[in-house]
């Protein structure tokens, strides 16, 4: 095999691989609606409400990206405590089993249930509407559009609100 053949054999795939690297589109932040009027006992400040919407949306974007790539580190700074432990364990299992879960076309409708007197605990109810897809070795084994209710605990972090507990609950 002379040099030209060698070049033809390896150069094209190398360049293709390079282009591929930049092409994986990153997840965008899902839409989040928030009704904070029922928050109590502490009244919710407007700036807090805006931060909660921003950080909750970013948390679900990070969860969707982490689930898509089975990488716990992509959860980023948005999950702490029990939520981070359980989600990380789930993603490690995914990785081990060659499976991936996708949360597509998300829409979240948040309602504040409890806002602690000192403002350090926020309980939310999220009615999440998304396409839930399960893949095994890149084969879709499950695909359903669902609406699920989550009870979420958020606490203030260094510079954002973080999800400390997130639990899907059966519809009443």
């Amino acid at each position, binding site marked *: 095999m002379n040099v030209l053949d060698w070049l033809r054999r390896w150069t094209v795939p190398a360049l293709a691989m390079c282009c591929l690297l930049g092409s994986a589109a990153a997840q965008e932040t899902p839409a989040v609606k928030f009704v904070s009027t029922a928050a109590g006992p502490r009244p919710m400040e407007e700036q807090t409400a805006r931060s909660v919407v921003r950080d909750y949306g970013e948390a679900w974007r990070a969860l969707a990206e982490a689930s898509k790539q089975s990488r716990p580190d992509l959860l980023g700074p948005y999950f*702490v*405590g029990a939520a981070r432990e359980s989600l990380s364990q789930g993603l490690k299992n995914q990785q081990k089993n060659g499976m991936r879960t996708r949360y597509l076309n998300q829409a979240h409708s948040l309602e504040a249930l409890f806002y602690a007197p000192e403002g*350090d605990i926020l309980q939310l109810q999220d009615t999440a509407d998304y396409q839930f897809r399960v893949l095994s070795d890149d084969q879709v084994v499950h695909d359903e559009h669902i609406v699920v209710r989550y009870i979420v605990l958020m*606490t203030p972090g260094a510079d954002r609100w973080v999800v*400390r507990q997130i639990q899907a609950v059966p519809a009443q």
Partner: protein
Amino acid sequence: MRLWISLLLLGVTAALIVAGLGQPGVLWGQNRESRDAVDAAGAGAPQAAIASLLRNVQRHDWDGAYAQVAGSSNVDQASFIRDLSGTHGALRTFSGLTGWDLNPLRATDSDAEVRATMHWATPVGALDDARDLKVVREGNAWKVVWPQPHFPDPPPQVIPLTFMRWDLVTGGSGDEWGNRNVDGPRVRIVSMNAVSYEGGSVVIGEAINEDSIPAFVNVNATLVGPDGQVLGNESSFDKVLHVLLPKQVTPYRIDFPEVELAKIKSVQMDVKTSLIGAAADPVIEVSNQAIGDDGAGAKALQGQLLNQSGQVVNIPHIIATFYDDGGRVIWVADGYIDRALLPQSPEPFRVRVPERIANNARNYRVVVNQYSLGGS
């Protein structure tokens, strides 16, 4: 041809090396900052004697420096070195002489007086030390009469430590939410004022530790413009007491050199506190405080510090708050002292103050920040 080329190369090389030796300021191998000072010193013999002394101090050549000291000074070399290189872990022991300015005050054929302002590079920033030095002619050389240094010499004694000490037990680094959360200390801004200064603006005021435990404090300020955009965000840096005991009040000063006062619509203050172990010792008395001339044509708040405890304060840092007749904070100034505070030994201090403030200040208060080797 061979000879001509060899001579040419040799000659050009020699000429370039000689030219290299003649480059300004390189002759004495100093760094850039003191080069202009050397030129100024060349003016007269008395100043040359002082410059030679200071140059040796810069190179830590103490024998060479002491050789410039006049016999009539009756200062032994050890005291001379201690006076210039500092003792007891003081700020001076951390410092390096980077340059000096020499201003002749008076001169005759046999003696002269020169104000030497020494520029020291210290860990906490540049510090000037001005001294009026007398220079006398001894034989055909000029020598510097070094003032007799006074080193505090507290009598050996045992001073009981009778005050409170708080120790901090920090939990593990794991996530302890909901099990052992401890609130940070409560510190409140009691006054805030923004003033214009040298084309920029300065935010000053006072904060109090309202809690019953010591607080570690950092004060930040954000300047907001008319349309809500952030004009600047700075911290109080070293112009605040970071460790506040219960009910202790600290001044703070936050400089915004690039933001004009007229552009500011509002100031957002932010106090961040955390738990800290601390001691109610050392207690430092600030006495004889008065505003006067600093001898160099500027106004200064002067006074005396007295360390009433048994612990050596290696680096004292004073922060002075100035009030108008309505009790409003109109200025905050600070300064470091490059001598240590030994127990029961008074040490003078001076903080320069703008003329306008000196005229309007009706009252002032000085607090003392301190650093002790081995403890923070």
